[in-house]
């Protein structure tokens, strides 16, 4: 029964994920192809530290810095976070508000197991985007003249996948726990954006530097996977957060009334 629920969720979410994946690969190929032409010019720009941090630390004159700022800092997490959050909130709170969940849960399936199945489907959507990012990196870096190892590109895709799991799980927790789609989407997106800003600016101010530890971005990219490989502690933190948040959603939906 849970397999059926996961399969139908995937069937409904994968078309959008596939389109995004194809677009992501195309954009990364274009970004890579642009590097030989504009990378060295942009690399000479004197960018303020705060702006540089927003873009993943700058260093645009190298292929690693170029992809870090163009893809790893913004585009990758934006696409994977958007799909994870919208997919997770739509398949939980969205279906509840659309009154579909009321029919589904009149069948002999536990609410928690249904939410678990939906979370698994969203994880597959996230993996699809992470794999597309990996393919896009390989293509883009090749078109840009090379310079990043496959291992480091894989590390970014892995970190990105766990970032997607965590943001999706946050939306699952909020969507399943409250049944309110706008709240789930808005709050999860706000956490993502605040996390990006905090991770960028907190290290610049000594008194609030510690805030970076509450940002999912820190565990995703704080370790610079394109240069230093997989950050095992970061992956563990994001993985544990994903499991805990999904569990909170499963518990939350069991304890409350369906709203519609």
């Amino acid at each position, binding site marked *: 029964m849970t397999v059926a629920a996961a399969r139908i969720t995937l069937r409904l979410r994968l078309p959008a994920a596939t389109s995004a994946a194809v677009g992501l690969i195309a954009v990364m190929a274009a970004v890579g192809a642009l590097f030989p032409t504009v990378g060295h010019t942009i690399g000479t720009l004197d960018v303020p530290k705060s702006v540089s941090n927003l873009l993943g630390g700058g260093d645009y004159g190298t292929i690693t810095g170029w992809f870090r700022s163009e893809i790893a800092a913004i585009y990758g997490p934006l696409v994977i976070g958007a799909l994870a959050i919208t997919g997770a909130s739509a398949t939980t709170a969205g279906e509840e508000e659309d009154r579909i969940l009321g*029919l589904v849960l009149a069948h002999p399936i536990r609410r928690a197991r249904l939410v678990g199945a939906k979370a698994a489907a969203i994880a597959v959507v996230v993996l699809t985007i992470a794999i597309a990012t990996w393919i896009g990196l390989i293509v883009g870096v090749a078109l840009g003249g090379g310079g990043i190892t496959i291992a480091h590109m894989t590390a970014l895709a892995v970190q990105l996948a766990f970032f997607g799991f965590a943001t999706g799980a946050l939306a699952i927790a909020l969507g399943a726990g409250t049944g309110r789609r706008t709240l789930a989407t808005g709050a999860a997106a706000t956490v993502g954006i605040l996390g990006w800003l905090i991770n960028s600016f907190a290290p610049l101010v000594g008194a609030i530097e510690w805030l970076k530890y509450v940002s999912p971005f820190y565990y995703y990219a704080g370790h610079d996977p394109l240069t230093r490989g997989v950050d095992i502690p970061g992956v563990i933190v994001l993985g544990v957060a994903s499991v805990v948040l999904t569990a909170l959603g499963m518990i939350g939906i069991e304890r409350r009334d369906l709203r*519609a």
Partner: protein
Amino acid sequence: MSAAPVIATSGLSKDYGSGRGLFGLDLEVWQGEVFGFLGPNGAGKSTTMRLLLDLIKPTSGSARVLGLDTLRESIEIRGRVGFLPGDLALYPKLTGRAMLDYLAQLRGGVDPRVRDALVERFGADIDRPVRQLSTGNRQKLGLVQAFMHEPELLILDEPIAGLDPLVQQSFHALLAEVSAQGRTVFLSSHTLSEVERVTHRLAILRQGRLVVVDSLENLRQVAVQRLEIEFSGPVDPEEFRALPGVTEAHAEGRTVTVGFEGSADAVVKAAATHDVRAIRPREDGLEDIFLHYYRPDGAP
């Protein structure tokens, strides 16, 4: 009838605040019954059904369905019950076939012959995406999914909404078959004619409280009766309005229609003071019974 009721509620309540919800429902529905649950919008019909399926939790009281506790044994209950929600919604992008396949899988599979027979019986279109279907065609899918696993109990919230008369007829025939097989139907409606035609007993809810549970025959006896009295000449209906028990009187040409509660004696005697050509009793519909009970001062 079995020894235990198929549905039994005891003081079942769901308080949404501001006087909305369901309050102290005590109800028993027996095996093989087609039980009508009547009331206007907001009376608590859908709330009762959602409580029985554990989609919402009661504020107080309890309910048992098929002998099982609705809170602790809801999974088993839902496996043995077919449910049609009043505001049916399906995945718009899926075809009817894919939707039915999914819901069948959630039940661990159904007999495809039963499903196909229901699809044919209702003329359901299962090959187009749900978003392209009319309300009536979506409702047909809802009926198919509710009946396709041959449940012991059917909980149907406004089942004929949007159905054309032919499909309604088919649905009524199916209810009779289901009842004859010893299965139970608990259906809500504010389409009064639907309940009148198919139910053995009915309950009327008013503002979240049970007003009456009885057979249609018994309910008719307490309802307003009407006589159409044809005179040889015009008669002022005001003569009848002052009589004890008379609730209404109006004239149309030489015919006066008088509505009254209790004995017809005073009405007949007043009519006899004129030249009476004919007296015709008017069969009261369930509409009158319903309105009688739904009036805020309607006696339970």
